[in-house]
């Protein structure tokens, strides 16, 4: 019953369900593509972290893999000079706004940023860009959770998890460079309707949300 299509990723032929987003087809076949914001459950990809770019045959510019439904005969490369430079810049931009303290970070060793850096041979410390530290207060008001907005990469995984399994406490606020994940009215987690369920901590890829 399960109809499949054959696609080619990095010269490897794989089978995937038609219409499935390329990112998931690749990951299911152990082909790693950097990504932070993507979620399999989400009907409509957020496509906001801009890290999962791939080169698609027949298309002039790289395309985010999380937004590309697979079709029969699709030919994709996860690496190319164009893709690599775009991903490198995207990663450097994120790292320029991520408080780097791996040694003391709960995500150390299990961090998506470290994984991307390793996979793509990128430096965690930005090479060409100055560090933009917003110096926001760390919120340790909740019983079990510590939230350091200075580490947050705004992938939105916690917001989704909180809506699904938690109390819908977390959301995005403000615009542009000031965009932040926070509670309604910006109150500390301890004063919000947070139930300390920890769903957000489980999905945070970078240790911005951590268990106490």
């Amino acid at each position: 019953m399960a109809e499949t299509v054959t696609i080619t990723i990095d010269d490897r032929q794989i089978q995937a369900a038609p219409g499935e987003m390329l990112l998931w087809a690749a990951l299911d076949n152990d082909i790693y593509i950097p990504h932070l914001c993507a979620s399999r459950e989400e009907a409509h990809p957020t496509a906001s972290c801009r890290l999962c770019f791939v080169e698609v045959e027949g298309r002039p510019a790289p395309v985010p893999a999380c937004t590309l439904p697979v079709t029969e005969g699709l030919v994709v490369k996860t690496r190319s000079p164009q893709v690599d430079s775009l991903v490198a810049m995207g990663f450097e931009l994120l790292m320029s706004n991520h408080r780097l303290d791996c040694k003391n970070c709960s995500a150390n060793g299990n961090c998506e940023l470290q994984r991307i850096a390793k996979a793509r041979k990128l430096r965690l410390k930005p090479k060409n860009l100055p560090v933009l530290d917003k110096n926001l207060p760390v919120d340790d008001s909740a019983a079990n959770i510590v939230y350091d907005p200075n580490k947050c990469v705004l992938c939105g995984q916690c917001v989704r998890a909180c809506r699904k399994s938690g109390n819908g406490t977390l959301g995005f606020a403000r615009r542009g460079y000031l965009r932040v994940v926070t509670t309604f009215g910006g109150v500390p987690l301890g004063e919000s309707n947070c139930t300390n369920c920890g769903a957000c901590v489980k999905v945070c890829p970078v240790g911005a949300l951590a268990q106490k």
Partner: protein
Amino acid sequence: MSNHNAAAAAAFAKLQEEAQKDWDRLREKPLILIGAATCGRAAGALNLLEEVKNELAELKLDANVLEVGCMGHCYAEPIMVIYNEGFPAICYGYVTEGVGARIVRDYLTEGDPGIEFALAALEPNDMFPTFADFPRGIHENKIVLEQCGFIDPQNIDHYIATGGYVALTRALDMTSQEIVTTIKESGLRGRGGAGFPTGIKWQTCLDAPGTTKYVICNADEGDPGAFMDRTILESNPHLMIEGLAIAARAVGATKGYVYIRAEYPLAVERVALAIEQARSKGLLGDNILGSDYSFDIEIFQGSGAFVCGEESALIASMEGEPGIPRHRPPFPAQSGLWGRPTVINNVKSLSYVPHIIKNGAAWFTGIGSEKNPGTAIFALAGKVVNTGLAEVPMSTTLNELINDVGSGIAGGKKFKAVQIGGPSGGCLPESAMDTPIDFDSLTRAGAMMGSGGMVVLDEDDCMVEIARFFLDFTQQESCGKCTFCRLGTKHMLDILERITKGQGKPEDIDTLTQLAAKVKAGSLCSLGKTAPNPVLSTIKYFRDEYEAHINEGRCPSKMCKDLIAYYILPEKCERSCDACVGSCPVEAIGDNEDRIKVIDQEKCVKCDSCMVACPPQYKAVVKLSPPHLVEEKDREYREGKQKWQKQ
């Protein structure tokens, strides 16, 4: 169907007859029009209106006075037009306090039309030139702006009497596909900025499955220096309403929205009134003109986020979500408002629609160029003499638009660049002045059509500062969702700020170029994809200015405050004059031993007051860049003095 619509044609003929009577009645007495769109009001049009009414009452004169929209000659506001028997209709400009009453008095009591205040006559005659006799008139070809400033936007009869709603009535006799085909054949491209073919958008929506569909007029104009949509809505709201109704008929929508920013209160008010009037005449609502077709419009006021002009962000905002763009496809024409197929068109795009239906696709393709048919509507702003709205055929050159239509640069200064396409457009230099204005040529030159904002810059404008200004705008208006736009534009802005402060590094230009390329390639929506344009185009054409800032700490245009110093030329200073001293807010100016005025550089806040205050016959205050030139000038002065004393 034809039965319904024969009835509709008859119903409309009756409306036309009534409207014509109303229109003819206007001219039974002298008719005075006063331009009272936002531009006119800012220049005092409402005072003029009152003044004219008072004068008429005092003189016991009978005349019709109408508050109309804007004719496009914003530079000459307040503007007044008088139709009086025995003379050609005359348009007066710069009708400041007292002038309006005087013209009315002299003209209506003594028959003296006051030609010294006339801008031009409206019809050809032997006495005064008309607008068509000026270089501006030669290039102008008004389609959308034709009635603006000549009809009362608050009176639907004026619109009907001048040909309004004929197209909608005709569209009732056409099938959806016929309408879409006509728009496709006309080659109309979206005037919101991207230039996407309107017909293809409509076809996609028409072909999309589902019975509930929507049409939206995008009136979220937010570019600095752009006011085309506002002026159209304030001057002739029915044109957009008719266009929207035809769009709805074409795609099979029964509900339409006007998404308009709340910062445009007058436009909101006039559109609301126009919708109400159209409804009361049976031109909107259930069974339009007694036909089988129903359509109604609601206004949605946006709170004024620039990014909400982007289709998917606009929809999110209407659905009650934060106005943040999402990945496309699916495009709104397939899945838009509440997941339904939705056509979103700009005010200008929709305003062409009734004209195309009325005059045919071939008529439209006969104007402009092959791939860019029709006209371009530009808001001329900045250092150009004749600021305002201009409508010229596509492929008119920049030179013609700025020097003929706009009458060149104000104040005898030199042209430096023109910033086209809003904050995400580009700056083009003198050498690009022969570029034809159309979607493709402007993009090739490194700018873009955008929604039609055009800011003219002269020799006093620093191109690095201009790039910083526009990037500051887009950076603040970025929604912050995607990495490249949120952080890329932030880093670019930081670098530009450093350069304008004289803290630039030699590698900054390369870093800016690299960041710009990646922000363009990597961003999610068009705001991010186009945000680097001002930076890229200024680096391309004005790289020397960047280098002067970085390498010499010098601002060639003497605009960047941190890189200039004010200095009083001793040889020009009139010792006994204290104008500069009196104007200085921080008491930084004093006498030296020769009673020549000297600026204390430590205290000076570079407010420009002394330069403005220094009488024009002396012109003793100058700006020096880099600032350390002050010390050199001081030394020269002391050495010169010593030499003179020795002799």
